[in-house]
């Protein structure tokens, strides 16, 4: 095993139809027009010395190290800023060039510390490499002159040019004394991340990299790591490298946070992670990362990890550590006991969107083949199940239509109910790059999110609608398209079902759907809606990106279909730059859905009542399968509270924190007789469990994740499971104890079975993934390299189907008692229930959930930022700190659900999407008032953090999330 190093071409390889051929050091080279001489040289393996150039950034031409000679040209141009031209004759080495480069390096080194042996970049320093490459042997200027290196001059006086180390960021340091002012960090922050947090202050010898007028932590910096990665010296350096030294080998794996699914190189010393570096060849992220994937991996080895199986008879008993055999035997016998007493349908399972496809597949197989029912569901139920329903109904497939790269070709970007800079930051960076290059932007969101306005980005239209009125708004957009003659008629005629289209067009043209009529509900000015609709319909390639602000409503599925209608009517599906794309929450939520985690569907979205499909599974699995749909998570909980659902196997989910109406969830869990949790931490749900089976972090796994663009990426094991057993083996053992054998020796064999059973995965295997890096499903005989774009010539379902989407207001209403609307969401540094990120330094940025409230509502209630406020709904009440913010509109408050002790979901209700039961997290009627107390629920929860988490023979307290 060795350290994976991608080739750095120095400047981006351009995409062009035309090529040019030139001669470099006598060798003929052909490259796309617009490619630099430097990149052309590297494409045949000729490394021209460089410092300020790297191929993730546009050329800059400041270091003057990459000079070359070109026949017929005067002087020595910089090869990074000189485009290759037809017939050019280039020399990269000559006596003259050698002398010039050496002179440049001599100047650099005269103002650089010579502590190479003890420097953290030792072994990975481009400055050192270049000094070697140009043959620098002496520095004639000495080191005593004016410099940035020493704190004091030789007479003991303070050096005005010297700046101290900035260690404020928890993950990396900035050492100005080692800076060569190549600008790579500043440009990375601007071009790659798009945050513009860094700058160069001063001029000439005074030029310094600065995070604005403050330190890194206090600045706009989002800690994505792009600057650290771009730095050629030890100026910006991971603290982990400073502490541990350079890694010696690496493996490519996939991030376990959001649905972007970034590829990373896990750089290792033995089985210890030194750092995670985004992989340049990863198609989802192309070498970029965010603060979660890049830095927040420390939870994997956190002291709270539970690594021994445990059981207990009652949830009030302390846990007892037992052997694997005893834990699995106990779980199986309990499940069988429950089944005997309450019937076959009293058992079920929840699969995890954080686990691999292979692990998820096994759990649903266990349910169908060993429990012999279809009571399996996954956390997509509470996030993107309406996407599955809505896109399947209209287009024919339960997934997004594009790859992420497609955004580079979009002309008008419509973001609805998504907060990409916080929720999907790496994709947001790609989107912002396209916006800076001129694409137009429409944002529909109740809050003024960062994408609405940030440096060099400004939405043309921010449609700041009231929560719960998405359908009215999207209908109004479509109304304008239809009534103003903006329909792409040839497209609709060729590709869509015309009868359905005509019914829809008549429906949507009704006055009730006009922007003027819907303004009453949405609160968005009609002319703003009209202008936005015209822009989307006529501005070129129109691309829709949406998130949970669309799906987590009582009309979530309707909104998804309304967006599909809008995209079809304007001809915006089926090519690059357009489409309708869910930004999925969790790393493998697409995969969990694909793997047959829904109670009504087998893998590849085939209904359990379909005899042909069932027969294939029955033959392969050797059991007969139930042809009736099973229970969805909310149904399981209803039946648990009602006394008919009694046993649950939960794989890596924390429904007691993540699911709505916490008191309903915990009452359901408490009513069950056998709750088995497979997780890495003793999470909130585990307080109600009887068996705990220790799981593994993604670093301990071989498998695959499927991201929001249907991309199947490999997850590769870099350390052994801390529990001594792979998760997939645990599921197999449990199935065996239940009397059902699943013979696999490696996750690759599980994928082979998935491929055999699932037409859209027929061409997927570990060999194919190792060869291609990743593939987007469908991947089969018709598309052996996968399918970046869906619905290219025709829709998967045949003709695109327009569905009627009448606006039906939610039954959750505001009134005198609960006059405000609460909507919930996420923040950049924390992830979902926070079980992972709260156990990292990411809490530096966000250590508690706060309630955002508009100044008007705050003033009415005498609330100031920092006050403790009581937040109450019909479901329950909690207390948390207020933050007065103009990002909110009057009448709407907002919070996150990252911290268990806050209990944001105590507030949310049982209301759900009509088609899928996806909970309505985004609309809850609430009241807010000042308080001095934490709520009863919070006090009880604090007590139970200790009383329901005791482990026999261990001191209590340190396992509670609250004690983080």
């Amino acid at each position: 095993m060795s350290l994976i190093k991608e080739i750095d071409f120095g400047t981006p390889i351009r995409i062009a139809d035309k090529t040019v051929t030139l001669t470099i050091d006598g060798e003929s080279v052909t490259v796309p027009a617009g490619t630099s001489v430097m990149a052309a040289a590297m494409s045949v393996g000729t490394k021209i010395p460089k410092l300020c150039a790297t191929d993730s950034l546009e050329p800059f031409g400041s270091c003057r190290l990459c000079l070359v000679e070109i026949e017929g040209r005067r002087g020595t141009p910089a090869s990074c800023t000189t485009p290759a031209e037809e017939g050019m004759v280039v020399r990269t080495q000559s006596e003259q060039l050698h002398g010039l480069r050496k002179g440049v390096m001599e100047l650099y080194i005269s103002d650089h510390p010579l502590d190479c042996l003890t420097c953290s970049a030792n072994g990975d320093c481009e400055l050192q490499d270049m000094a070697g490459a140009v043959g620098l042997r002496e520095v004639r200027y000495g080191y005593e002159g004016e410099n940035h290196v020493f704190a004091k001059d030789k007479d003991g006086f303070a050096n005005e040019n010297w700046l101290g180390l900035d260690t404020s960021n928890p993950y990396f340091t900035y050492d100005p004394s080692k800076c060569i002012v190549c600008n790579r960090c500043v440009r990375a922050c601007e071009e790659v991340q798009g945050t513009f947090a860094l700058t160069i202050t001063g001029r000439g010898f005074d030029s310094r990299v600065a995070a604005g007028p403050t330190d890194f932590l206090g600045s706009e910096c989002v800690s994505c790591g792009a600057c650290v990665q771009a730095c050629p010296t030890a100026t910006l350096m991971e603290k982990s490298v400073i502490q541990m030294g350079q890694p010696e080998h690496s493996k490519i794996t996939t991030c376990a946070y959001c649905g972007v699914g970034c590829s990373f190189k896990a750089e290792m010393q033995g089985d210890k992670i030194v750092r995670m570096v985004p992989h340049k060849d990863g198609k989802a992220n192309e070498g970029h990362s965010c603060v979660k994937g890049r830095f927040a991996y420390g939870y994997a080895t956190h002291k709270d990890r539970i690594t021994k199986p445990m059981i207990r008879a009652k949830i009030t008993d302390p846990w007892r550590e037992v052997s694997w055999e005893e834990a699995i035997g106990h779980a199986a016998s309990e499940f069988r006991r429950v089944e005997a007493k309450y019937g076959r349908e009293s058992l079920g399972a929840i699969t995890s969107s954080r686990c691999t496809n292979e692990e998820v597949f096994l759990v649903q197989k266990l349910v169908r083949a060993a429990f012999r029912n279809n009571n399996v569901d996954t956390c997509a139920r509470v996030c993107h199940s309406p996407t599955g329903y809505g896109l399947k109904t209209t287009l024919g497939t339960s997934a997004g239509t594009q790859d992420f790269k497609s955004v580079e070709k979009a002309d008008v970007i419509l973001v609805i109910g998504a907060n990409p800079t916080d929720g999907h930051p790496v994709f947001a960076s790609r989107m912002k790059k396209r916006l800076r290059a001129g694409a137009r932007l429409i944002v529909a969101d109740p809050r003024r999110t960062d994408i609405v306005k940030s440096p060099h980005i400004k939405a043309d239209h921010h449609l700041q609608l009231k929560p719960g009125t998405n359908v009215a708004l999207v209908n109004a957009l479509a109304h304008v398209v239809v009534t103003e003659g903006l329909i792409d008629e040839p497209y609709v005629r060729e590709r869509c079902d015309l009868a359905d289209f005509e019914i829809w067009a008549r429906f949507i043209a009704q006055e009730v759907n006009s922007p003027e009529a819907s303004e009453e509900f949405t609160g968005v000015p009609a002319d703003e809606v009209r202008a936005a609709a015209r822009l989307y319909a006529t501005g070129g390639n129109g691309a829709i990106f949406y998130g949970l602000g669309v799906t987590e409503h009582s009309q979530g599925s309707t909104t998804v279909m309304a967006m599909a209608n809008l995209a079809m009517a304007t001809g915006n599906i089926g090519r690059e730059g357009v489409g309708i794309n869910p930004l999925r929450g969790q790393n493998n939520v697409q995969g969990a859905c694909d793997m047959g985690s829904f109670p009504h569907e087998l893998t590849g979205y085939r209904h359990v009542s379909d005899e042909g499909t069932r027969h294939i599974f029955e033959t392969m699995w050797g059991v007969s399968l139930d042809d009736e749909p099973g229970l969805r998570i909310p149904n399981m909980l209803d039946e648990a509270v009602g006394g008919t659902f009694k046993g649950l196997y939960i794989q890596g989910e924390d429904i007691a924190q993540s699911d709505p109406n916490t008191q309903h969830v915990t009452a359901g869990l408490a009513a069950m007789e056998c709750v088995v949790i497979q997780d890495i931490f003793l999470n909130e749900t585990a307080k109600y469990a009887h068996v705990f089976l220790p799981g593994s972090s993604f670093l301990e796994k071989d498998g695959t994740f499927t991201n929001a663009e249907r991309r199947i990426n490999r997850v590769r094991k870099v350390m052994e499971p801390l529990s001594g057993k792979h998760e997939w083996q645990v599921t197999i053992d449990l199935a065996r104890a239940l009397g059902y054998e699943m013979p696999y020796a490696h996750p690759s064999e599980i994928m082979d079975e998935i491929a055999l059973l699932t037409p859209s995965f027929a061409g997927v295997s570990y060999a194919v993934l190792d060869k291609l890096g990743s593939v987007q499903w469908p991947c089969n005989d018709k598309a052996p390299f996968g399918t970046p774009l869906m619905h290219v010539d025709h829709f998967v379902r045949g003709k695109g189907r327009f569905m009627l989407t009448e606006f039906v207001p939610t039954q959750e209403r505001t009134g005198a008692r609960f006059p405000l609307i609460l909507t919930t969401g996420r923040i950049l540094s924390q992830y979902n229930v926070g079980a992972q990120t709260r156990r990292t330094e990411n809490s530096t940025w966000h250590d508690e959930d706060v309630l955002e409230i508009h100044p008007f509502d705050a003033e009415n209630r005498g609330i100031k930022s920092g006050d403790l406020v009581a937040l109450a709904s019909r479901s329950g009440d909690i207390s948390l700190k207020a933050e007065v913010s103009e990002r909110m509109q009057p009448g709407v408050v907002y919070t996150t659900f990252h911290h268990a002790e806050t209990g944001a979901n105590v507030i949310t209700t049982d209301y759900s999407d009509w088609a899928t039961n996806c909970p309505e997290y985004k609309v809850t009627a609430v009241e807010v008032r000042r308080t001095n107390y934490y709520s009863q629920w919070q006090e009880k929860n604090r007590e139970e953090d200790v009383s329901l988490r005791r482990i026999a023979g261990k001191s209590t307290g340190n396992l509670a999330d609250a004690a983080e």
Partner: protein
Amino acid sequence: MSLNYYDPAAVKLANMAKLGHMAGQIADYFKSYPEEQAVAAIAAHINEFWSRRMREDFLATFNAGSEGLHPLARAAVVAIKPAID
């Protein structure tokens, strides 16, 4: 908390009301379609996504004459697949 989750009678009542509410929501979606089509679609949706026991509980509580039920859902009751084990 509006509902005591530890009171079996109250919970049963609430669960049945919830099934009626869910059927009403489905009906509210399909009501824009012509009645015949809507009724068939409502029943098909319930048959496709509700478990055997949910349908059984629903049919035990509601019938074509149930007052509290959305009129279209009422019309769909006859087309909901009875639970046969």
